């Protein structure tokens, strides 16, 4: 996967956390991954279509999800409830939407977010997507962005 496809998701994640959550993120080293269960308990996912197709997944642990929801909602939820999952979904929507805008020349469409909650949940990316893992760390906790995209081939 080309760097020009990955970099917008890196910058979008940092921008969303900076603007919406007033927190800076530090990116860790990128890695390739097979479809292993994500390290964190809550994942927001959005499908992408157009010149590239695939999926982007944003995963956070319970504490990070609660911290982020508290910042967005103005009050800390007592547990991983519908409000927290909605908050993770909206963060996912903003990250992927912002990256899509940076990739304007690729004419991408994105779907609505889906959020999964549960330890060891396993998500399969489309065949050939070879997801790249982009880890971040910040005051609210760790964020794991997984980008699995396939470029459309000429007919």
């Amino acid at each position, binding site marked *: 996967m080309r760097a020009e496809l990955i970099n917008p998701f890196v910058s979008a994640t940092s*921008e*969303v956390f900076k*603007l*919406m959550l007033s927190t800076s993120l530090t990116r860790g080293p990128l890695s390739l991954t097979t479809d292993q269960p994500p390290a964190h308990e809550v994942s927001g996912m959005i499908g992408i279509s157009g010149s590239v197709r695939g999926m982007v997944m944003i995963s956070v642990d319970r504490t990070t999800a609660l911290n982020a*929801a508290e910042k*967005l*909602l*103005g009050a800390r939820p007592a547990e991983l409830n*519908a*409000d927290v999952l*909605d*908050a993770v*979904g*909206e963060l996912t*929507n*903003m990250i*992927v*939407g*912002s990256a*899509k*805008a940076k990739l*304007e020349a690729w004419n991408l469409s*994105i779907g*609505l977010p889906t959020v999964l909650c549960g330890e060891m949940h396993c998500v399969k990316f489309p065949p050939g997507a070879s997801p790249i893992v982009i880890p971040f760390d910040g005051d609210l906790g760790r964020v794991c962005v997984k980008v699995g995209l396939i470029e459309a081939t000429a007919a």
Partner: protein
Amino acid sequence: MSKKVLVVDDSATMRKIITRGLNVAGLTDVVEAGDGCEALAAFQQHAFDLVVTDWNMPNKSGLDLTREIRALGSSVPVFMVTTEGERGRVLEAITAGITDYLVKPFSADALRDKLDKYATV
């Protein structure tokens, strides 16, 4: 009397953020809707002074909602808050009848600057 505002977004989180921003601006009479269909039904029941809407929603998009509001003959300000930041999309929204636009993500200051205009007009 506070102006009446319709806030439309399928994300409860975003509706809360927008509503909180409206309240800070002194706009406290807020009705929320989770999609364009719900919003259109509310719009036909109440006289709103402002509509704040997302673009991409299930059932009916914010863009289609805007077109239908304009088709009803209403000139109410419609302020779109969306991740759709590409220039072509902004032009599409303006053509549909959107009167103001804010791209997500946004800072609290950027939201306040936009909403303050409607509190004073």
